[in-house]
């Protein structure tokens, strides 16, 4: 059976689509969770910084002509709620630094403003808030700047990100498993249909009746219609071969019979010679036609082999009995020896036809009043049907090539034949998993042809 050309795979396409989608979703999930986490972390830090800055600004007051800033406990306890972060602060008035770290420069601008920048070699979040201190001489802007490290925060964010990654991977893996299952269930009916079609015997062309999913119904419908057509065309070709044989052979039979009658009645030797030639030609053409049609039928039947168990011993005896009258005509003794009684599995009519063709050759090419031995043996799992004659044997080049179609030995001039006998025999043996071997007898003249079939 030849494999169909393959383009793509439904299962693979399904898997790729499902897994691709799952991959995109997992990555999106990861990115969203990650940025949300960062955003949330930043927002909460900013809120705390805002609260701490305004708490500090609240404590700014003018005492004895100097600006006083209390560092409120609440502000620092808020700031420490984020973990072990370090905090730097600076309070500026228009006149300059009031208190805090000199090098902490407020963020330029107005209102409450945030920034992330490097300070003292570390990545920090900064807030600058301004409050107008109402004084007798007019409002005085006081600016508080806070900087906080982000170590603990980024650790937390990292944890959340790692969790998001694990979540994404887990999501992807579970979707992958589900996708595999889905692909398998959706392919299942196709596989079951394939299997049920494959399990069928070659002659089983009944429609598929097992229920299939709605999507596959048109396919199965088409398959059933196709099998119907195939069945009809097979029947037709079988009938055609048989009919062709009938059409060719009946008129030939009439001509041959008339020729035989003429030969009996004609006295003149040269007329008799031409009638004899005529009969020979008729035999030649009818034999060729017969063998051709046999060959067609053998090919047809080997393609649709319906094996049964064959008792080779019985088959051997039957076939020899059928041919005995032919052998008798030339006083050839057909002897059957059954050394074993092996059976084989195959088409009885085909195996019989193989043996008949080999035997037919043996009888044809034997000397009159000689013997043809048919021996059935069993050896190493094979049943061997050996036909040994004492005839002219194979030509000097050996039997090579004689199983080819229309190939006849170089030494068979004068014997009617079609060159298909060994071809048929060999094809039958091959179709049954066996083989045909042919050689000349080692002692004395004649040929030995062996048909081997696997023992059943």
């Amino acid at each position: 059976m030849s494999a169909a050309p393959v383009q793509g795979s439904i299962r693979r396409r399904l898997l790729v689509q499902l897994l691709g989608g799952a991959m995109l979703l997992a990555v999106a999930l990861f990115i969203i969770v990650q940025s949300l986490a960062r955003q949330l972390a930043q927002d909460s830090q900013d809120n705390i910084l805002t609260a701490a800055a305004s708490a500090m600004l609240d404590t700014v007051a003018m005492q004895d002509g100097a600006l006083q800033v209390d560092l409120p406990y609440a502000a620092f306890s808020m700031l420490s709620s984020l973990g072990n972060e370090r905090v730097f602060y600076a309070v500026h008035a228009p006149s300059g630094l009031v208190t805090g770290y000199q090098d902490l420069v407020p963020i330029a601008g107005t209102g409450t403003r945030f920034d992330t920048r490097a300070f003292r070699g570390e990545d920090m979040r900064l807030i600058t808030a301004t409050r107008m201190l109402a004084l007798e001489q007019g409002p005085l802007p006081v600016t508080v700047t806070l900087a906080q490290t982000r170590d603990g925060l980024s650790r937390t964010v990292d944890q959340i990100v790692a969790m998001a990654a694990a979540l994404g991977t887990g999501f992807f893996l579970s979707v992958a498993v589900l996708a595999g299952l889905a692909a398998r269930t959706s392919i299942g009916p196709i596989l079951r249909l394939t299997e049920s079609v494959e399990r069928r015997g070659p002659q089983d062309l009944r429609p598929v009746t097992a229920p299939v999913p709605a999507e596959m119904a048109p396919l199965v419908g088409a398959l059933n219609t196709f099998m119907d057509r195939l069945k009809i065309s097979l029947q037709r070709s079988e009938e055609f071969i048989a009919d062709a044989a009938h059409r060719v052979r009946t008129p030939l039979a009439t001509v041959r019979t008339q020729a035989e009658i003429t030969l009996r009645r004609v006295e003149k030797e040269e007329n008799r010679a031409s009638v004899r030639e005529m009969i020979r030609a008729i035999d030649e053409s009818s034999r060729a036609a017969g063998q051709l049609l046999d060959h067609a039928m053998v090919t047809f039947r080997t393609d649709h082999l319906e094996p049964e168990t064959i008792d080779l011993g019985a088959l051997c005896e039957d076939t020899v009995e059928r041919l005995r009258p032919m052998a008798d005509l030339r006083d050839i003794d057909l002897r059957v020896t059954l050394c074993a009684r092996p059976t084989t599995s195959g088409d009885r009519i085909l195996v019989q036809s193989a043996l008949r063709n080999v035997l037919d050759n043996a009888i044809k090419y034997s000397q009159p009043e000689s013997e043809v031995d048919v021996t059935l043996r069993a050896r190493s799992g094979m049943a061997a049907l050996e036909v040994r004659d004492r005839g002219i044997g194979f030509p000097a080049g050996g039997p090579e090539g004689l199983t080819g179609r229309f190939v006849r030995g170089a030494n068979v001039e004068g014997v009617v034949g079609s060159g298909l006998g060994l071809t048929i025999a060999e094809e039958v043996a091959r179709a049954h998993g066996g083989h045909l071997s042919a050689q000349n007898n080692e002692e004395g003249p004649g040929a030995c042809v062996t048909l081997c079939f696997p023992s059943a």
Partner: protein
Amino acid sequence: MRFLLIEDNDNLARAAVDRLSLDGHVVDHAGSLSEAQDFAATTDYDLILLDIMLPDGDGRSFLKAHRERRAETPVIVTTARSEVSDRVSVLDLGADDYITKPFDFSELEARCRAVLRRRGGAASNLKQLGDVEFDSLSGTLRIGDNSIRLRNRELRLFEVFASSPDQIFSKAKLLDRLFSYDEEATENAIEVYVGRLRRHLQGSRAAIVTVRGLGYRLTVT
């Protein structure tokens, strides 16, 4: 022998009837199944030659009915279909043998003889030639207490002579009767077989004599 030939092709049937009568057989021809049944019911045949494809039905149904009647007459099926093309062999349906058209009448004769031998034969096959009793079915010559088994070609040759004693048969004609058309046989071969028959007939009143320039004939004194 008396044959019933069941064959729907008239040309072939006529030729076959002519050909069989050349060997001294009596043949009735039926062109259809119904005709064949009429013949078979009223006449006793030694052998029925049955074609499988007939206008009013399959020859196999005749075969079945014939076997169900427990009729003893052997049936040889003549078929133009190849043996490979029929899934059910006619032998399984009760035919005694079958032969594929076109056939050599000597093959048909050989098959008839084999079938009749298997069936036990009839007394009508015995022929007395002087003190020689010839059984053409088993192929034996009995001279007094001495019984000789003839080989097939000797048998067929002797049959030719015994069919019409005193008639002269040329070597060429005998050659046609004895050898198939694709065998290269010379007239010397006939001399060999005649020589053998002469040895078998030694001491009897039957003899094959040479008619110089013409051939041989069987004489009984």
